[in-house]
């Protein structure tokens, strides 16, 4: 269970990086990326994923299937 950033939509604003409670978000070579091994979708920390909450683009951060 983790989230991922849709590369084609991310504008590299960086708003998501500081709000991640598990420091799973880093700036990648192209756009920001989420470490699927550490992302908890904010469970235990917040009611809703904080990156999704602050992201200015709709449907840019989505749940990783499987």
């Amino acid at each position: 269970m983790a989230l991922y950033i849709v590369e084609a939509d991310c504008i590299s604003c960086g708003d998501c990086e500081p709000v991640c409670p598990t420091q799973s978000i880093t700036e990648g070579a192209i756009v920001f990326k989420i470490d699927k091994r550490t992302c908890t979708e904010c469970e235990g920390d917040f009611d809703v994923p904080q990156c999704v909450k602050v992201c200015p683009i709709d449907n840019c951060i989505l749940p990783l299937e499987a």
Partner: protein
Amino acid sequence: MSQNALSRELALRIALAARALPDTDAKRLVTVLAGCVGMPMTESKIAAIDLVTLKAAQQGEFANVADDVLLQALSILKNTASDKILPAVQAYQEGDLPNSVRIACASDDAIHVNGHFGGCTWFMVYQVNGEEARLIDIRSTDIPEGLVVDDKNVYRAEQIQDCKVVYVASVGGPAAAKIVKLGIHPMKLEEVESLADIVSQLQQVMAGSPPPWLAKAMGIEASERFKFDRKAVG
């Protein structure tokens, strides 16, 4: 007669100002202005007219005209705002420029990106690809008379809804959120730059390796994007 002759430029401005006023032709405006300052009219006399004088002239001929409309007419008359000569708009038809994006630049002088999103006089609209750029439209930000607008910034954003990017000298947070909501990417510049520089910078990025969101806006399929993408991310 010659002493009553208007300079060519002043005559043009009177004609333009008359068009900004409801049911007013140049003759009616000239009559009112003559009532304000007498003949002959000169630049300096026109520059001295204020809203109160204009409203009172000719027994209140324009007393019922809205203040903002009169102020707009005055600014045209005095050459203080929006009647600078605008650059010519170039023809554009959908499909003329492959892999192009449409952008808007907030400008007050039609030369620089120097406008605040919520206060600029114009949006200069360009269609740009890596090789070519055309100024395809100059959109006034004036709200048409009689139109009730709940939110000025939403109205402004709607005027450029067909654009992917809007370059501004400054924009407020809530306004930026409204712009993003309409699918437009706001770009606030560090310092004022000319329209030509901004367009050519964008062209360089487009011709080089555009970021994924821009490539998507250009209509480039993910599979056609740069190979190093995949390697770098993996």
